[in-house]
C-alpha cells in the first residue's frame, strides 16, 4: 500500500483524545439505510505495481513518433523549451491553490499579473483575466459578457464556426435566453456574408462573433473594417494567440472582446486537455469580466504587492448574480503560456508562425492535382490550416487510407453528430508544424495520390 496516509497507530492516540472507541463511531450520523457495502474496487497497490499498471494501459497507445501528424485545427504540436515544464514542476506552483491570501501567494499572483499583461499586449485590448478553461469556454464567456454590455436577444455567429464551439456557446447562453443566428458563408471563398452582418446587426443583436483565423483556417481581409458597420454592438473575436505575432491584433480594429485558445503556447496536446482559455476586453467593461483578476497594490510598508481584485464580480460573493460561475480556472496553464512566450520572445514566436504558414503552403503545393482532393477547398488565404475537400469518397475513407500509411492526414470539419443541423462539407483541415519536413510532405503527397477513392 502506498504511504500517502499516516499510520493507523496515530488513529488510536487521536481516538483516545476524542474519547471514542473506533473511527466507525465518527460515521454514526449516516443513516443505516444510506450506508453502502463494498465499493467494488480492487485492493490497494504499491507504487511500482501502480506504475506498471498505468504504463501497461498506456502502452496500448500507438506512439505518436511513428506517424507523420498533420493534425491542427486550433490545437497544435509545437516544441516547448524544456525550461517551461521544469518551472511547471516546481511544487510551489502546482500544489498551491487560488491565491486567497495574497501575502502567502505573491509568486502565483505576480505570474498571473504578467500573464494578463501578455494577453493584453498580444490582443491589444485593455484588460485580461487570469484564465478560463479553454478556447471554447472563453469564447462562450465572451459572448455572455457582451450580452451584459449591450441589449439584444440575438447573437450573430459564423455559420462556419467549429461545431464544438458553437455547441458550447449555445449551452452557455441558455441562461441569457438568446438566439444564435448563423451568419451565412460563401461556398467558394468560405468567407462570411459581411453585408448580412451589417444588415442584421441593427435588429436586436447583442453581439457579433467572428474568428481569425476562422474555423476553416481562413484569413478574412475585410475583418479590420467590420466594426465600423456595427455601431454600438459589441464585436467578439476568437483569435489564435500564435497568429497575433503576425497579424494586426483585434484590439486595433475595434474588437470589444477577444477570446482564444492558449494551447499552442507551451502546453502539451494531452488528448484535448487541460488547455487554456484566454479572454480580454476593454477596461470600461472590466466589471462585467468573468474570472479571476490580479491587480497591483502595496503592502503595509508601501512595497509593491499583487492581489486578486474586483472579487465582487465573482460567484463566491455575488452568487446568482455573478458574472460567471467559474471558480477554479487554468492558472498553471497560464503560467506555461507566459513562460513559453517569454522563452520564445516576440521574434521567436513570429518566426515559428511564419514557418508554420510557409510549411502549410508547401503541403498545398505538393498536393496540387491530386485526384479526389480539392486543395485548397476555398479560394482564400489561410494561415496555419488548409481546408481540403474530398471528392468521390468520404473524409473518413480518405483519412483511414492515409492512416494505413502512418499519416494523420487531418481533422474532419463536419459535425460528427448524426442529427447535426449543418450542411455537410466533406472536408478536413491539415496543418504542417515545425516537425513536418519536406520528406514528410512528400510522403503525404504520395499517399494521397495513391488513394483510389471510395
Amino acid at each position, binding site marked *: 500500500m*502506498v504511504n500517502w496516509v499516516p499510520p493507523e497507530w*496515530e488513529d488510536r492516540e*487521536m481516538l483516545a483524545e476524542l474519547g471514542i472507541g473506533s473511527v466507525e463511531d*465518527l460515521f454514526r*450520523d*449516516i443513516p443505516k439505510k444510506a*450506508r453502502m457495502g463494498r*465499493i467494488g474496487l480492487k*485492493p*490497494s497497490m504499491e507504487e511500482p505495481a*501502480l*506504475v506498471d499498471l498505468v504504463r501497461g494501459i*498506456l502502452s496500448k*497507445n500507438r506512439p*505518436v*513518433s511513428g506517424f507523420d501528424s498533420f493534425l491542427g485545427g486550433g490545437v497544435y504540436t509545437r516544441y516547448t523549451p524544456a525550461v517551461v515544464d521544469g*518551472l511547471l*514542476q*516546481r511544487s*510551489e506552483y*502546482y500544489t498551491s491553490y*487560488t491565491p486567497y491570501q495574497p*501575502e*502567502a501567494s505573491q509568486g502565483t499572483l505576480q505570474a498571473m*499579473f504578467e500573464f*494578463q*499583461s501578455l494577453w*493584453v499586449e498580444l490582443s491589444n485590448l485593455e484588460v485580461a483575466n487570469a484564465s478560463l478553461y479553454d478556447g471554447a*469556454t472563453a469564447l462562450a464567456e465572451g459572448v455572455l459578457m457582451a450580452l451584459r454590455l449591450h441589449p439584444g436577444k440575438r447573437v450573430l455567429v459564423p455559420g462556419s464556426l467549429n461545431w*464544438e464551439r458553437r455547441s458550447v456557446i449555445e449551452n452557455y447562453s441558455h*441562461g441569457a435566453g438568446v438566439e444564435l443566428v448563423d451568419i451565412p458563408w460563401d461556398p467558394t471563398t468560405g468567407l462570411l456574408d459581411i453585408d448580412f452582418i451589417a444588415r442584421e446587426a441593427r435588429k436586436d443583436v447583442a453581439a457579433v462573433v467572428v474568428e481569425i483565423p476562422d474555423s476553416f483556417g481562413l484569413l478574412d*481581409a475585410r475583418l479590420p473594417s467590420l466594426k465600423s458597420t456595427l455601431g454600438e454592438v459589441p464585436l467578439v473575436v476568437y483569435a489564435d494567440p500564435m497568429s497575433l*505575432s503576425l*497579424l494586426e*491584433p483585434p484590439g486595433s480594429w475595434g474588437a470589444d472582446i477577444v477570446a482564444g*485558445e492558449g494551447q499552442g503556447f507551451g502546453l502539451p496536446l*494531452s488528448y484535448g*486537455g*487541460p488547455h487554456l482559455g484566454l479572454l480580454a476586453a476593454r*477596461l470600461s467593461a472590466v466589471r462585467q469580466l468573468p474570472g479571476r483578476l490580479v491587480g497591483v*497594490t502595496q*503592502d*503595509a510598508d508601501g512595497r509593491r504587492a499583487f*492581489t486578486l481584485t*474586483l472579487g465582487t464580480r465573482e*460567484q463566491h*460573493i*455575488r452568487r*446568482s448574480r455573478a458574472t*460567471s460561475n*467559474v471558480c*477554479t*480556472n487554468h492558472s*498553471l496553464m497560464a503560467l506555461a503560456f507566459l*513562460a513559453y512566450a517569454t*522563452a520564445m520572445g516576440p521574434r521567436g514566436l513570429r518566426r515559428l508562425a511564419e514557418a508554420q*504558414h510557409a510549411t502549410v503552403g508547401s503541403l498545398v503545393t505538393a498536393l496540387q492535382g491530386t485526384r479526389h482532393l480539392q486543395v485548397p477547398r476555398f479560394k482564400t*488565404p489561410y494561415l496555419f490550416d488548409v481546408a481540403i475537400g474530398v471528392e468521390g469518397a468520404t473524409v473518413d475513407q480518405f483519412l483511414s487510407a492515409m492512416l494505413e500509411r502512418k499519416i*494523420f492526414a487531418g481533422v474532419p470539419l463536419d459535425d460528427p*453528430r448524426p442529427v447535426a443541423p449543418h450542411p455537410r462539407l466533406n472536408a478536413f483541415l491539415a496543418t504542417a508544424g515545425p516537425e513536418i519536413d519536406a520528406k514528410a510532405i512528400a510522403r503525404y503527397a504520395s499517399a494521397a495520390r495513391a488513394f483510389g477513392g471510395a
Partner: protein
Amino acid sequence: MAFHQARWDEPLLWEIRTPIESKVDPIQGIPEPLLRKTPFRWPEPTELELSRHFTRLSQMNFSIETGIYPLGSCTMKYNPRVGEVLARDLSMTAAHPAQPVSTVQGTLEMLYRLEEALGKITGLPNVSLQPAAGAHGEFTGLLVARAYFHKKGDPRTEVILPETAHGTNPASSSMAGFAPREIPSKDGCVDLRALSDAISPRTAVFMLTNPNTAGLFEEEVLEIADRVHAQGALLYYDGANMNAILGKTNPGKMGFDIAHLNLHKTFSTPHGGGGPGAAALCVTDALTGFLPVPRLVKEGRKFRWSYDHPDSIGKVRSFYGNVGMDLRAFAFIMAHGEDGLRRVSERSVLNSNYLAHRLGKLLPRPFKPLVKHEFLLSGLPLRERGLRTLDLAKRLLDEGVHAPTVYFPSLVEESLMVEPPETESKYSLDAYYSAMERSIKDTDENIHAAPRRLAVGRVDEVAAAKNLRLSWRDLRRTP
C-alpha cells in the same frame, strides 16, 4: 522553528529586460491589411534569467509541499509525485484529440476504467469526464436536468439550494437558465420545513452538499430525497465534500440523481495555483441520454467515442475533458483501491474531528460536535480585542501554515472553515493547534501587524480595487 518566506522584491519581466519590438515584414499568402502594425512588445530574457525569475517567484508561494493548507471545502491533500511522472507519458501528452481512436486505445481504456470506478464510488453509473472543474460540472449537471424536463414536456424554472451552498451553485443555476432560490438552514443543516415550503411543481432541482459546508452530515438526507422526488424534482449532489464519505455512503444510496465530483479535491489532482481542476458528472440511468457528447463506449475489447445521442446537451467545452488530470485521478484511485479509499475518508474525518476537538478549546464551534471532513470555528470572541477573523488568518500565515477558508459560509459570524485532509499527520495537526494558540495569544498589536514573515506585509486589497492596475499597460499609465 521560525518560518520565513523568501522576500525577493522580484522585478516584473519587463523590468529585467527591455522589451523587444517585433516587426512584421510582408509575408507571402497573408493579405497586407491583416499584417501586424501595432508593435508587439515583450522581453526576451536569457533562459537563466527566465528560470531565476520564476524560481524566485515560486519561493514566494505557499503550497501543500511547503506546509499544511487546510482551506475548507478545497481538500488540499498531498498530490502524489507519481501522478506527475505518469501524466507526462509521451503517448498521452503528445496525442492530438483528433487522432484516430485506434491509436489512443490506452488512453481511452484509462478513461473508461476511471468512469467505471467513479460510477461505483458514487453509485451513479453513467459518467462524463468532460467538465473542466467543479463549477463546470454543476453547470453541466443542471443543463442535463434542464434537457430532461424539456424532453418530458415539463419545463421547470427553479433551483432550490440551502443558504450554505457554495457560491458556484447559485451562479451555475443562473447560467443554466434557472432561477435559484436559497432557503434558510436550521442548526447548520437543511430546514425540512423551509424545503417543503419552497418546493413546488416549478422546482427542477434541489442542490445539496453532503456533508455540507458546515462540515455536518445531513442526517435527514433520505427524507429530503423523498420530498424532492415527490414533487417530481431531481436531487443534485455537489461533490466538493466527497472526501468525507468514500466507501461509507454515496450519492446513489442517499437518493441523489446527479452528482459532480471535483477530481482535484477528493482524487488528488494538483490545484495548480488555481487550476486546472477536473470534474466528473455522474447520473442515474434515466438521465444518461442527456449527458454531453461524445460518450465513451466499449465494444468487445475496443473503445471508441460515440456521438449518436440525440437527447444529448451537446458540448460544454472542446474535446473530451482534462485528460491529463483524469490520469492522475485514475492513478490515485487504483493505488488506494477498495480499502485505501475507505481509509482516506476515515482518516480525513478523524483528522477533522481531532483538530476540531482541540481547536474548540481556543475558539467557539457552532452546531453539533460530530463533524465530517471539515468544521467551522467562529472568530467572534476576537472582536472584543478589536480583531477580526481576517487578522487571525494573517497572523497564522506567519507560523508557516496556511489559513483556513474565512468568512464562508456566512451562516456563522467571523467564520473559519478548516479542512485537514487525510494526508496530514497527527504531528502536523498538533503543530497547527500550537500555531493557532500562539497566534491567538499574541499581542493585539502583533496580530494587527501580521504577516511579517512573508514576501510582503499585509496587502492593501481595497487600494487594488480603487486604483485599478491590471496589466503592464496600466502600470505604464499609472506607475
